[in-house]
């Protein structure tokens, strides 16, 4: 048993130990948040160590136990998992830092429950990232749905309850009605559920069955928010902003698209995927979703709702990238997981900072806010650029690869769709910071003095905004990581 592989256990268990710590110190807020922060930093270090070992060519895998004959709870580090694990573990301590500022600034109740559920969610994310088979992935996918439910309903109001109902109803409903049967059928057809280079289906599998499975998987993984199963994401926006930021811009939705990439690439395999007729239909469905979600986003005045629809649209990019079934598309999608995460979390941080500092949640009331909150609004501007995909921000690279992939596969319409949606991004994101700084002739509301958000929150959002820029100039580590998705040998 090599000890480096044990680090996978450590990665999953660290947040769980943090849960124990959080519960122990429930009466001492400083210690409680300290535990979360330390666990976050430790987790990041663990993931970095995994990354280093992986780069040395070590095969890291762990088997926990056999739940059903032939079906193991087992984990294995690969490039895609590392990407997801690193992104999540990098952003967890940052979000915790932000949450300290936000939750205290906002005087939220039940903070212990909040931090505890948050840590469980991260543990589930780690397990999803390093899952070796669909079975393991599914188990922790469900755990993630369940442990984020108390976070969504955190406020306990009628609206929160309703949001929670939609959230759990769609996520659990689709996973039980589509995802689970897809897994069981796959297991019966292929005899294995392990992720393997080139897919696991035997060659003589009928195309009709594969089509059915593909549709079941794509809709079953509702965390990827493929329309028409996207309603849970706007519903989840009733949660406190740190939750929206980390979970509904990074962990949960990325778990969805991550699962999709994993399943499509390592269960179906790119070649099989290209032969299935359903792929094209789903591709255009996802493309339509990209534009539709952007259009809906334009009509939202509530900032968090607009960001939520923007997320749905951006997740559509990733889904499109995977369904193109070429390497450049997958690489673009994988990179977009990271770049969109950084951009969107910054935007949510800003939204929360504005809420805490000025109690404003409607975009129309944020005109002229740039004067009193310059740092926040600058960060918002940078992150918007990244979401749109303009230099000098990280989003440029992933969109570049995605567009290349559409060209490569001669999907010119889709290319048009992606470009159109990016233009729409400009239309619904950029005016917010611009009008904050240059209110023009409109009366600037806000007679009371508005200051920047608490320092803890500011540090966090500056960090992620900066990361967007840094990743533009130094994209190489990211690029090297995603290019290894296909280069590693079969396990």
């Amino acid at each position, binding site marked *: 048993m090599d000890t480096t592989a044990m680090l996978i256990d450590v990665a999953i268990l660290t947040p769980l130990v943090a849960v124990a710590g959080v519960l122990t110190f429930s009466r001492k807020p400083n210690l409680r948040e300290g535990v979360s922060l330390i666990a976050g930093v430790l987790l990041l270090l663990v993931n970095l160590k995994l990354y280093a070992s992986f780069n040395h060519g070590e095969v890291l895998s762990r088997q926990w136990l056999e739940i059903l*004959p032939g079906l193991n709870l087992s984990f294995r580090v690969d490039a895609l998992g590392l990407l997801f694990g690193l992104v999540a573990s990098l952003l967890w301590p940052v979000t915790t830092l932000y949450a300290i500022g936000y939750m205290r600034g906002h005087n939220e109740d039940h903070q212990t429950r909040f931090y505890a559920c948050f840590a469980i969610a991260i543990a589930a994310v780690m397990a999803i990232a390093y899952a070796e088979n669909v079975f393991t992935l599914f188990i922790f996918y469900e755990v993630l749905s369940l442990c984020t439910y108390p976070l969504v309903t955190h406020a306990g109001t009628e609206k929160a309850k309703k949001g929670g109902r939609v959230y759990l109803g769609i996520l659990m409903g689709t996973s039980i009605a589509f995802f689970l049967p897809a897994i*069981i059928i796959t297991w019966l057809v292929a005899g294995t559920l392990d992720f393997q280079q080139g897919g696991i289906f035997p060659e003589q599998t009928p195309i009709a069955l594969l089509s059915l499975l593909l549709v079941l998987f794509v809709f079953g993984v509702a965390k990827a928010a493929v329309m028409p199963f996207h309603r849970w994401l706007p519903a989840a926006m009733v949660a406190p902003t740190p939750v929206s930021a980390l979970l509904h811009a990074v962990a949960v939705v990325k778990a969805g698209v991550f699962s999709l990439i994993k399943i499509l690439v390592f269960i179906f395999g790119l070649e099989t995927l290209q032969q299935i007729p359903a792929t094209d239909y789903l591709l255009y469905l996802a493309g339509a979703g990209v534009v539709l979600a952007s259009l809906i986003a334009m009509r939202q005045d509530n900032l968090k709702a607009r960001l939520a629809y923007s997320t749905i649209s951006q997740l559509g990019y990733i889904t499109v990238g995977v369904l193109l079934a070429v390497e450049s598309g997958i690489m673009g999608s994988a990179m977009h997981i990271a770049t969109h995460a950084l951009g969107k979390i910054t935007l949510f941080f800003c939204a929360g900072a504005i809420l805490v500092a000025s109690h404003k949640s409607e975009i129309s009331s944020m005109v002229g806010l740039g004067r009193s909150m310059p740092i926040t609004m600058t960060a918002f501007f940078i992150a918007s650029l990244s979401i749109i995909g303009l230099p000098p921000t990280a989003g440029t690279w992933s969109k570049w690869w995605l567009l290349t992939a559409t060209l490569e596969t001669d999907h010119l319409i889709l290319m048009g769709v992606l470009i159109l949606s990016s233009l729409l991004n400009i239309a619904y994101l950029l005016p917010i910071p611009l009008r904050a700084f240059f209110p023009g002739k409109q009366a600037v509301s806000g007679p009371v003095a508005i200051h920047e958000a608490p320092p803890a929150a500011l540090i966090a959002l500056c960090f992620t905004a900066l990361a967007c820029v840094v990743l533009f100039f130094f994209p190489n580590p990211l690029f090297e990581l995603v290019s290894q998705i296909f280069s590693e040998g079969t396990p």
Partner: protein
Amino acid sequence: MLSHLPILQVILPLLGAPACLILGRGKLAWLFALLVSTLSFCIAATLLYTVYHHGVISYALGGWQAPWGIEYRIDLLNAWLLVIVSGSSTISLLAAQSSISTEITLDKQGLFYVAWLLCLAGLLGILATGDAFNVFVFLEISSLSTYTLISLGPNRQSLWAAFRYLIMGTIGATFILIGIGFMYIMTGTLNMADLAERLPSASESPTVFAAYAFILVGISLKLALFPLHLWLPNAYSQAPSIVTTFLAASATKVALYLLIRFTYTIFPSEFSQFIIPLADIFVALGIVAVFSASIAAIYQEEIKRAIAYSSIAQIGYMVIGLGIGGVLGLQAALIHVFNHALMKATLFMALAGIAVRIGATTLTSMQGLGRKMPWTSFGFVAGGLSLIGVPLTAGFISKWYLVSAAALAGRWPLVFLILLGSLLAIIYIWRVVEALYFKSAADNSPVKEAPLTMLIALWLLILGNVYFGIDTRLPVSISYEAATALVEGRP
């Protein structure tokens, strides 16, 4: 001593009952009943171990060899059921004293344990015996004591519920008796193994056909198979809470055992395969049971009643498993028998705990209990998650096998209907979860946790749900062996 275990299994509680009467009221009777039940469980476990490793045990009562004497015959199927029934009796008895303290007056408590032990003896007797007439005798013992137990319920309606069950149950038992009588007329024997040998030669006769039909309907009545389920919701919701816990986990399972025993071991296979399209009838009735009962459960205000309806739905799943047939279908049914006992005992135990403290289990009276009785309320959540079939709980394993069985038999619509049924379970469980955690109570008077013994029993069950959702070797291997033996040993 060891060779006498099969009869000790039955005789111990049967003799324990009058002894309980002598011991009188209250605690002493409880401790004695608990002791007897625990011993029964140990015997059952030993029997299971012996059968699993050394094969079928045949025990001739009084040294009179079969087919003249009464034979007790323990194979894997009934050894498995013996463990389930005696186990659920023991765990319910552990909590019984605290639970009935508020529901049954002191002078009747001694009698309560007498009836309980008689009921246990009856159920174990049905399982252990290899003699068809003996089945009827023990069926009556268990039924009569069950009517008594139900009528001890706290409200006057319990008398009415018991009376209705008495009528229905007696009709069922009479049908079974008529069936057994017909078989005896045609073959001149009552021993099951002997019957199985002789029935094929008489299978052309309409009398045997009628016998089979009578027995099927009679058992279906005891099983509460749709549409013969009408007695169950009343009986379960009006009985003393702890009695419901015991009955829900054991009584219907025993009826299912009889169904399997008569269909697979006694009657010739062409009966259930060709003469009556039994498999299709089972699947159809099972599906209707799942949907009608789940929908009914959604609209119940009284939660004990809602969970009782859920039992009818779960019986539907087991019967679907039987209908699918083959080793896998049978195995799915047998696994679900065990897992359902676990999850239903958990749910009813949690409700019993709530009933002790607040005297009611209506949805409105349970509002806000999540904060006041966190340990008990969590029991309901855990049982509910298992019922829905969330991964890492026992219910998931059931669902996995049932769906696998349906998929492998190529019954695709069935796959989705089964899963759709669990979506309904989400709804009726989540109504309660929302009431427990998100509604605030009408009065803010503090409520104590459930009594210690009940909490211990509840948490043992919760741990059981989780343990058997992770380590599935025991139920999977035993149900596989039992199902294989049944299918291969078919006459």
